[in-house]
């Protein structure tokens, strides 16, 4: 079981501001779903855990790509070829 405080903490980690009035409903649904996930406790650790997959790499060669103007076109605001973001400090 997770508490409303836990859910608020997860929301903060996920950068989501939840309306105060909805925290209770979110928490109840969260617990319903987590309870359903408990069936995974019955899964035995087996040798099947790994995969035989491997990564596909290619050479890191420069090829034609988006222009700076195209790359900035959807940004809210840009300056000197950079995207403006909220301040960090």
């Amino acid at each position, binding site marked *: 079981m*997770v508490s409303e405080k836990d*859910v608020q903490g*997860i*929301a*903060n*980690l*996920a*950068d*989501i*501001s*939840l*309306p105060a009035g*909805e925290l209770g409903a*979110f928490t109840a*649904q*969260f617990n*319903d*779903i*987590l309870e*359903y*996930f408990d*069936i*995974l*406790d*019955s*899964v*035995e*650790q*087996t040798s*099947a*855990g*790994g*995969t035989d997959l491997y*990564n*596909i*790499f*290619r050479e890191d060669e420069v090829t034609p790509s*988006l222009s700076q103007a*195209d*790359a900035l*076109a*959807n*940004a*809210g*605001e840009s300056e000197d070829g950079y*995207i*403006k*973001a*909220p*301040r*960090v400090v």
Partner: protein
Amino acid sequence: MTQILSFDAEDEYNAFITICREAEYGEGPLAGRGVAVKDNISTAGIQTTAGSRILEGYIPPYDAHVVGLLKSAGAAIVGKTNMDEFGMGTSTENSGFGPTTNPCDTNRVPGGSSGGSAAAVASGMVDLALGTDTGGSIRCPASYCGIVGLKPTYGRISRYGLIAYSNSLEQIGPMGQTVSDVSGLMEVISAYDFHDSTSYNAPYTHTPNAAAVEGLKIGVPAEYFGVGVDPAVAEAVRTAIGRLESLGAEAVPCTIPSMAYALAAYYVTCTSEASSNLSRFDGVRFGPESGRKKMWHDEFRGIRGEKFGREVQQRIMLGTFALSAGYYGKYYAKAQIARANVRADFERVLSEVDVICGPTMPAVAFAFGEKSDPLSMYLADILTVPANLAGVPAISVPCGTVDSMPVGLQIIGRHFEDELVVDTAFAYEQGGN
């Protein structure tokens, strides 16, 4: 030479988020044919929202690989179809742009998340559409709206330009009125792409062949006809399998024991991947902009709280939780073992039979608002998610009605044997004529 298709169909089911009334097209096998594209697939110069208000106004600067292939084949992109936000839903009720209705009964959902693509095809606005399928999002709406939809083998279609929700599960795939249409569209979109490191060079060049059903061994898993499956739907699907038998196939019982936890493994995996993938939506680089008046995290929390829908927020948070220190072993790690078991089950069964058949969905399309609680909605995906976990191809083809609503027959095949899945569906479809 570029020509223009005037697309004047009326959108009475809210199947589209964006409509292109004057659609350009060129030469090729699809010359002049209108194709609807799900709105999580990037189209250069055409708004692409993935059904989310957080991407409202976003105009991609490039085409998804499949869209480039469509254009090279002469297709006219007539619009971007409605969907559950980022593909998260089974009804298209979770769209930020209002729900799509089911053309068979407008009081019912069209299924999801590719509900707009299915409604556009079922209503005759277009006869071809692209959808995406993470846990059933092509097959579910195909089943609910009475059309054909194929989730290809994982790796067969490039995901370059697809707005990522759950990379290890999702595939783009074709939807259409007939198996032949779906097969033809599959042929156009299946070319190898170096942009997607999971793209496998196995082009689909195939013409459906009904004769392939002769001597075909069909596995019928007990779990696909068990608890939670509407007996009338089960009966319709058993009748459909009977038709395949009358055409020369042999049906044998089988079991997929890992179905017991497949749905939980699926939801842990997709929410975990979503929590990472959707962290890029912050109102800075694309979509409605943040005001930049507050600090970094406060600004992001505000816009993500306002523009993401409730289900998307819920899934991001579930994934954040499942990946967090202290819970990772209980949820994510266990889900990956479960997933490997599902894959092993399918490989075992498919070493004994050629294809597996069962219902696509446990029941026919439900009414709007009927599954307002998320868990009850998730349970509707029980028969579709296993194919995504295993990475195998699966098609839904209409097989009669229950309560005047379409039922879908699901046919699942071996990895990279999409052709046999298509042939089996084709044999069924033609066998009724």
